Protein backbone atom coordinates (compact mmCIF):
# COMPACT_ATOMS: atom_id res chain seq x y z
CA UNK A 1 0.00 0.00 0.00
CA UNK A 2 1.33 3.42 -0.98
CA UNK A 3 0.75 6.44 1.21
CA UNK A 4 0.02 8.58 -1.84
CA UNK A 5 -2.80 6.23 -2.88
CA UNK A 6 -4.20 6.39 0.65
CA UNK A 7 -4.15 10.19 0.66
CA UNK A 8 -5.73 10.32 -2.78
CA UNK A 9 -8.52 7.99 -1.71
CA UNK A 10 -9.72 10.32 1.06
CA UNK A 11 -8.64 13.67 -0.41
CA UNK A 12 -12.21 14.82 -1.05
CA UNK A 13 -13.15 14.00 2.57
CA UNK A 14 -10.51 16.43 3.83
CA UNK A 15 -12.34 19.47 2.53
CA UNK A 16 -14.44 19.82 5.67
CA UNK A 17 -11.62 18.96 8.12
CA UNK A 18 -8.71 20.85 9.58
CA UNK A 19 -5.68 18.86 8.52
CA UNK A 20 -2.27 18.73 10.18
CA UNK A 21 0.60 16.70 8.75
CA UNK A 22 4.10 15.85 9.85
CA UNK A 23 7.13 16.88 7.81
CA UNK A 24 8.71 15.14 4.88
CA UNK A 25 6.97 12.71 2.56
CA UNK A 26 3.48 13.10 4.04
CA UNK A 27 3.54 16.88 3.62
CA UNK A 28 4.98 16.73 0.11
CA UNK A 29 2.56 14.06 -1.08
CA UNK A 30 -0.53 15.80 0.28
CA UNK A 31 0.61 19.03 -1.38
CA UNK A 32 1.17 17.18 -4.64
CA UNK A 33 -2.55 16.32 -4.64
CA UNK A 34 -3.39 20.00 -4.22
CA UNK A 35 -2.86 22.35 -1.33
CA UNK A 36 -5.87 23.78 0.48
CA UNK A 37 -6.06 26.55 3.09
CA UNK A 38 -7.25 24.06 5.70
CA UNK A 39 -4.00 22.05 5.49
CA UNK A 40 -1.10 22.79 7.85
CA UNK A 41 2.22 21.03 7.34
CA UNK A 42 4.41 20.94 10.44
CA UNK A 43 7.75 20.88 8.67
CA UNK A 44 9.78 20.10 11.80
CA UNK A 45 9.21 19.66 15.54
CA UNK A 46 8.82 15.91 15.09
CA UNK A 47 6.22 14.45 17.39
CA UNK A 48 4.19 17.61 17.87
CA UNK A 49 1.69 17.25 15.01
CA UNK A 50 -0.54 15.11 17.25
CA UNK A 51 -0.21 17.60 20.14
CA UNK A 52 -1.17 20.43 17.76
CA UNK A 53 -4.20 18.47 16.62
CA UNK A 54 -5.15 17.92 20.26
CA UNK A 55 -4.94 21.65 21.07
CA UNK A 56 -6.97 22.51 17.99
CA UNK A 57 -9.60 19.83 18.64
CA UNK A 58 -10.06 20.86 22.28
CA UNK A 59 -10.49 24.52 21.34
CA UNK A 60 -12.83 23.87 18.39
CA UNK A 61 -15.07 20.99 19.46
CA UNK A 62 -17.43 21.47 16.50
CA UNK A 63 -14.66 21.15 13.93
CA UNK A 64 -13.28 17.82 12.73
CA UNK A 65 -9.48 17.70 13.01
CA UNK A 66 -7.35 15.08 11.27
CA UNK A 67 -3.66 14.53 11.94
CA UNK A 68 -1.44 12.63 9.52
CA UNK A 69 1.35 11.29 11.71
CA UNK A 70 4.16 8.83 11.03
CA UNK A 71 5.84 6.02 12.94
CA UNK A 72 9.08 7.99 13.42
CA UNK A 73 7.24 11.06 14.67
CA UNK A 74 4.88 9.16 16.93
CA UNK A 75 7.76 7.24 18.49
CA UNK A 76 9.27 10.60 19.45
CA UNK A 77 6.13 11.57 21.37
CA UNK A 78 4.55 8.40 22.74
CA UNK A 79 3.62 10.35 25.84
CA UNK A 80 1.49 12.56 23.63
CA UNK A 81 -0.60 9.51 22.80
CA UNK A 82 -1.47 9.19 26.49
CA UNK A 83 -2.36 12.90 26.61
CA UNK A 84 -4.62 12.54 23.57
CA UNK A 85 -6.26 9.48 25.10
CA UNK A 86 -6.72 11.28 28.42
CA UNK A 87 -8.85 14.01 26.82
CA UNK A 88 -10.07 11.85 23.89
CA UNK A 89 -11.67 14.67 21.89
CA UNK A 90 -14.49 13.22 19.81
CA UNK A 91 -13.55 15.41 16.85
CA UNK A 92 -9.95 14.20 16.45
CA UNK A 93 -8.82 11.60 13.93
CA UNK A 94 -5.22 10.43 14.21
CA UNK A 95 -3.82 8.63 11.19
CA UNK A 96 -0.34 7.12 11.49
CA UNK A 97 1.43 6.16 8.29
CA UNK A 98 3.74 3.40 9.45
CA UNK A 99 6.43 2.61 6.88
CA UNK A 100 8.78 1.21 9.53
CA UNK A 101 11.40 3.73 8.57
CA UNK A 102 12.66 7.28 8.81
CA UNK A 103 12.21 7.66 5.08
CA UNK A 104 12.97 11.35 4.71
CA UNK A 105 16.48 10.98 6.12
CA UNK A 106 17.48 7.92 4.12
CA UNK A 107 15.20 5.09 5.19
CA UNK A 108 16.71 4.06 8.50
CA UNK A 109 14.51 1.41 10.14
CA UNK A 110 12.39 2.41 13.14
CA UNK A 111 11.39 0.12 15.98
CA UNK A 112 8.06 -0.69 14.33
CA UNK A 113 10.15 -2.75 11.88
CA UNK A 114 11.51 -4.85 14.73
CA UNK A 115 8.30 -5.55 16.59
CA UNK A 116 7.06 -2.36 18.26
CA UNK A 117 3.29 -2.38 17.89
CA UNK A 118 1.82 1.13 17.61
CA UNK A 119 -1.72 -0.27 17.47
CA UNK A 120 -1.15 -1.99 20.81
CA UNK A 121 0.49 1.11 22.30
CA UNK A 122 -2.42 3.32 21.23
CA UNK A 123 -4.96 0.89 22.71
CA UNK A 124 -3.04 0.58 25.94
CA UNK A 125 -2.68 4.36 26.13
CA UNK A 126 -6.47 4.50 26.21
CA UNK A 127 -7.40 5.63 22.69
CA UNK A 128 -11.00 4.42 22.45
CA UNK A 129 -10.90 3.35 18.78
CA UNK A 130 -7.81 1.90 17.15
CA UNK A 131 -7.40 -0.05 13.95
CA UNK A 132 -4.62 -1.20 11.64
CA UNK A 133 -5.19 -1.18 7.89
CA UNK A 134 -3.16 -2.74 5.10
CA UNK A 135 -5.14 -1.98 1.93
CA UNK A 136 -6.32 1.26 0.35
CA UNK A 137 -9.93 0.04 0.54
CA UNK A 138 -9.74 -0.62 4.26
CA UNK A 139 -7.85 2.66 4.79
CA UNK A 140 -10.56 4.62 2.98
CA UNK A 141 -13.31 2.92 4.96
CA UNK A 142 -11.56 3.41 8.31
CA UNK A 143 -10.82 7.11 7.73
CA UNK A 144 -14.32 7.89 6.42
CA UNK A 145 -15.79 6.06 9.39
CA UNK A 146 -13.63 8.04 11.82
CA UNK A 147 -14.36 11.39 10.16
CA UNK A 148 -18.09 10.77 10.31
CA UNK A 149 -17.86 9.10 13.70
CA UNK A 150 -17.85 10.66 17.12
CA UNK A 151 -14.88 9.18 18.93
CA UNK A 152 -11.14 9.73 19.10
CA UNK A 153 -9.68 7.28 16.60
CA UNK A 154 -6.15 6.21 15.80
CA UNK A 155 -5.63 4.41 12.49
CA UNK A 156 -2.31 2.71 11.85
CA UNK A 157 -1.81 2.49 8.08
CA UNK A 158 0.96 0.11 7.10
CA UNK A 159 2.53 1.60 3.98
CA UNK A 160 5.57 0.98 1.83
CA UNK A 161 8.73 2.95 2.53
CA UNK A 162 8.43 4.91 -0.70
CA UNK A 163 8.05 8.64 -1.03
CA UNK A 164 8.38 11.56 -3.39
CA UNK A 165 11.68 12.50 -5.01
CA UNK A 166 11.74 15.92 -3.34
CA UNK A 167 10.43 17.24 -0.03
CA UNK A 168 10.73 20.99 -0.43
CA UNK A 169 7.73 22.63 -2.06
CA UNK A 170 7.11 26.21 -3.12
CA UNK A 171 4.78 26.86 -0.19
CA UNK A 172 6.65 28.93 2.40
CA UNK A 173 6.26 27.76 5.99
CA UNK A 174 4.98 31.08 7.27
CA UNK A 175 2.64 31.52 4.33
CA UNK A 176 1.09 28.16 5.19
CA UNK A 177 0.86 29.01 8.89
CA UNK A 178 -0.83 32.39 8.41
CA UNK A 179 -3.18 31.08 5.75
CA UNK A 180 -4.20 28.17 8.00
CA UNK A 181 -5.01 30.40 10.96
CA UNK A 182 -6.86 32.91 8.79
CA UNK A 183 -8.91 30.10 7.31
CA UNK A 184 -9.92 28.90 10.79
CA UNK A 185 -10.86 32.41 11.86
CA UNK A 186 -13.02 32.77 8.75
CA UNK A 187 -14.83 29.53 9.69
CA UNK A 188 -15.54 30.94 13.14
CA UNK A 189 -17.05 34.09 11.64
CA UNK A 190 -19.20 32.14 9.19
Amino acid at each position, binding site marked *: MLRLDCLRSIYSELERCLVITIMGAVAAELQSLGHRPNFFY*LQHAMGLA*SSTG*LGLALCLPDQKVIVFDGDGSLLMNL*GGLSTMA*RYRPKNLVHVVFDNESLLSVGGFPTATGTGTDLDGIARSAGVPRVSTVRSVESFTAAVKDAIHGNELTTIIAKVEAKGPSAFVTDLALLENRFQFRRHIQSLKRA
Partner: protein
Amino acid sequence: MPVSLASSKVIYEGLKECDVRLVSALPETWLVHLIRMTDEDPEMILVRLAKEEEGVGVSAGAHFAGVKSAMLMQNHGFLASINGIVSFAHLYKIPLLMLISYRGSLGERDPWQTQGGNVTEPVLRALRIPYFFLDAPETAKKLIRQAQTLAESSMQPVALLLTRDLMWED
Protein backbone atom coordinates in the same frame (compact mmCIF):
# COMPACT_ATOMS: atom_id res chain seq x y z
CA MET B 1 2.65 23.05 52.06
CA PRO B 2 4.34 26.44 51.96
CA VAL B 3 3.55 27.12 48.31
CA SER B 4 1.99 30.58 48.36
CA LEU B 5 -1.75 30.35 47.82
CA ALA B 6 -2.06 34.12 47.75
CA SER B 7 0.55 34.53 45.00
CA SER B 8 -0.90 31.60 43.03
CA LYS B 9 -4.28 33.32 43.16
CA VAL B 10 -2.84 36.59 41.87
CA ILE B 11 -1.08 34.80 39.00
CA TYR B 12 -4.25 32.91 38.12
CA GLU B 13 -6.30 36.09 38.10
CA GLY B 14 -3.63 37.69 35.93
CA LEU B 15 -3.98 34.91 33.35
CA LYS B 16 -7.77 35.17 33.37
CA GLU B 17 -7.68 38.94 32.99
CA CYS B 18 -5.69 38.68 29.79
CA ASP B 19 -8.20 36.19 28.42
CA VAL B 20 -6.12 33.02 28.65
CA ARG B 21 -8.56 30.14 28.13
CA LEU B 22 -6.26 27.14 27.80
CA VAL B 23 -3.44 26.12 30.12
CA SER B 24 -1.11 23.21 29.57
CA ALA B 25 0.74 21.96 32.61
CA LEU B 26 2.96 19.37 34.10
CA PRO B 27 2.75 19.24 37.88
CA GLU B 28 5.54 20.53 40.00
CA THR B 29 5.42 21.56 43.64
CA TRP B 30 5.30 25.32 43.13
CA LEU B 31 2.51 25.01 40.57
CA VAL B 32 0.05 22.84 42.52
CA HIS B 33 -2.36 25.64 43.41
CA LEU B 34 -2.29 27.10 39.91
CA ILE B 35 -3.05 23.73 38.34
CA ARG B 36 -5.89 23.07 40.80
CA MET B 37 -7.40 26.51 40.11
CA THR B 38 -7.26 25.84 36.37
CA ASP B 39 -8.82 22.42 36.84
CA GLU B 40 -11.69 23.79 38.93
CA ASP B 41 -12.51 26.62 36.53
CA PRO B 42 -15.20 25.63 34.00
CA GLU B 43 -14.13 28.48 31.72
CA MET B 44 -10.63 27.07 31.37
CA ILE B 45 -9.30 24.13 29.36
CA LEU B 46 -6.56 22.33 31.31
CA VAL B 47 -4.30 19.96 29.39
CA ARG B 48 -2.21 17.81 31.69
CA LEU B 49 0.85 16.75 29.72
CA ALA B 50 3.14 13.76 29.85
CA LYS B 51 6.10 15.94 28.82
CA GLU B 52 6.31 19.70 28.56
CA GLU B 53 7.29 19.83 24.88
CA GLU B 54 3.78 18.66 23.98
CA GLY B 55 2.59 21.99 25.34
CA VAL B 56 4.22 23.82 22.44
CA GLY B 57 2.02 21.87 20.02
CA VAL B 58 -1.08 22.29 22.18
CA SER B 59 -0.52 26.05 22.41
CA ALA B 60 0.07 26.27 18.67
CA GLY B 61 -3.21 24.47 18.08
CA ALA B 62 -4.94 26.88 20.44
CA HIS B 63 -3.38 29.83 18.63
CA PHE B 64 -4.64 28.55 15.27
CA ALA B 65 -8.06 28.23 16.89
CA GLY B 66 -7.87 31.83 18.10
CA VAL B 67 -7.65 30.86 21.78
CA LYS B 68 -5.07 32.43 24.09
CA SER B 69 -3.07 29.94 26.10
CA ALA B 70 -0.35 29.67 28.71
CA MET B 71 2.17 26.97 29.60
CA LEU B 72 2.88 26.12 33.24
CA MET B 73 6.11 24.29 33.79
CA GLN B 74 9.26 23.95 35.81
CA ASN B 75 12.53 25.17 34.35
CA HIS B 76 13.52 21.55 33.71
CA GLY B 77 10.34 21.28 31.66
CA PHE B 78 11.44 24.31 29.70
CA LEU B 79 14.75 22.56 29.04
CA ALA B 80 12.79 19.51 27.84
CA SER B 81 10.80 21.71 25.42
CA ILE B 82 13.64 23.32 23.52
CA ASN B 83 13.28 21.55 20.18
CA GLY B 84 9.57 22.32 20.10
CA ILE B 85 10.26 25.95 20.91
CA VAL B 86 12.92 26.29 18.21
CA SER B 87 11.48 24.16 15.43
CA PHE B 88 7.83 25.08 15.96
CA ALA B 89 7.30 28.27 17.95
CA HIS B 90 10.28 30.13 16.50
CA LEU B 91 10.13 28.60 13.03
CA TYR B 92 6.40 29.29 12.62
CA LYS B 93 6.14 32.43 14.75
CA ILE B 94 3.80 31.03 17.39
CA PRO B 95 3.16 33.19 20.47
CA LEU B 96 3.83 31.28 23.70
CA LEU B 97 3.29 32.59 27.19
CA MET B 98 5.53 30.41 29.35
CA LEU B 99 5.26 30.57 33.13
CA ILE B 100 8.33 28.80 34.41
CA SER B 101 9.00 28.01 38.05
CA TYR B 102 12.60 28.98 38.63
CA ARG B 103 13.95 26.09 40.67
CA GLY B 104 17.58 25.63 41.61
CA SER B 105 18.21 29.29 42.31
CA LEU B 106 18.72 31.26 45.54
CA GLY B 107 17.50 29.33 48.58
CA GLU B 108 17.04 26.00 46.77
CA ARG B 109 17.25 23.06 49.15
CA ASP B 110 16.74 20.20 46.69
CA PRO B 111 20.11 19.17 45.27
CA TRP B 112 18.50 17.74 42.12
CA GLN B 113 17.17 21.13 41.07
CA THR B 114 20.47 22.97 41.15
CA GLN B 115 21.96 22.22 37.73
CA GLY B 116 18.79 23.35 35.99
CA GLY B 117 18.94 26.54 37.96
CA ASN B 118 22.43 27.22 36.65
CA VAL B 119 21.51 27.04 33.00
CA THR B 120 17.96 28.43 32.82
CA GLU B 121 18.83 32.04 32.06
CA PRO B 122 21.80 31.29 29.78
CA VAL B 123 19.58 28.97 27.72
CA LEU B 124 16.77 31.55 27.55
CA ARG B 125 19.32 34.12 26.36
CA ALA B 126 20.83 31.70 23.82
CA LEU B 127 17.34 31.12 22.42
CA ARG B 128 16.73 34.89 22.39
CA ILE B 129 13.55 34.41 24.41
CA PRO B 130 12.60 37.61 26.26
CA TYR B 131 12.27 36.75 29.96
CA PHE B 132 11.19 38.61 33.05
CA PHE B 133 10.92 37.81 36.75
CA LEU B 134 7.65 37.40 38.57
CA ASP B 135 8.89 38.10 42.07
CA ALA B 136 6.21 40.15 43.83
CA PRO B 137 2.41 39.83 43.97
CA GLU B 138 2.00 43.60 43.56
CA THR B 139 3.49 43.59 40.05
CA ALA B 140 2.57 40.06 38.93
CA LYS B 141 -0.69 40.85 37.12
CA LYS B 142 0.78 43.73 35.17
CA LEU B 143 3.79 41.66 34.11
CA ILE B 144 1.59 38.78 32.99
CA ARG B 145 -0.52 41.15 30.91
CA GLN B 146 2.55 42.77 29.39
CA ALA B 147 4.21 39.43 28.65
CA GLN B 148 1.04 38.15 27.00
CA THR B 149 0.80 41.30 24.90
CA LEU B 150 4.44 40.98 23.85
CA ALA B 151 4.07 37.29 22.94
CA GLU B 152 1.07 38.10 20.73
CA SER B 153 2.57 41.13 19.01
CA SER B 154 6.02 39.61 18.47
CA MET B 155 4.55 36.17 17.67
CA GLN B 156 7.19 34.41 19.70
CA PRO B 157 7.72 32.76 23.08
CA VAL B 158 7.99 35.03 26.12
CA ALA B 159 9.01 33.62 29.50
CA LEU B 160 8.04 34.67 33.01
CA LEU B 161 10.27 33.17 35.68
CA LEU B 162 8.32 32.45 38.86
CA THR B 163 10.77 33.06 41.70
CA ARG B 164 11.01 31.53 45.16
CA ASP B 165 10.20 34.89 46.74
CA LEU B 166 6.83 34.85 44.99
CA MET B 167 5.94 31.17 45.17
CA TRP B 168 7.26 29.93 48.50
CA GLU B 169 6.41 30.95 52.05
CA ASP B 170 9.15 29.73 54.37
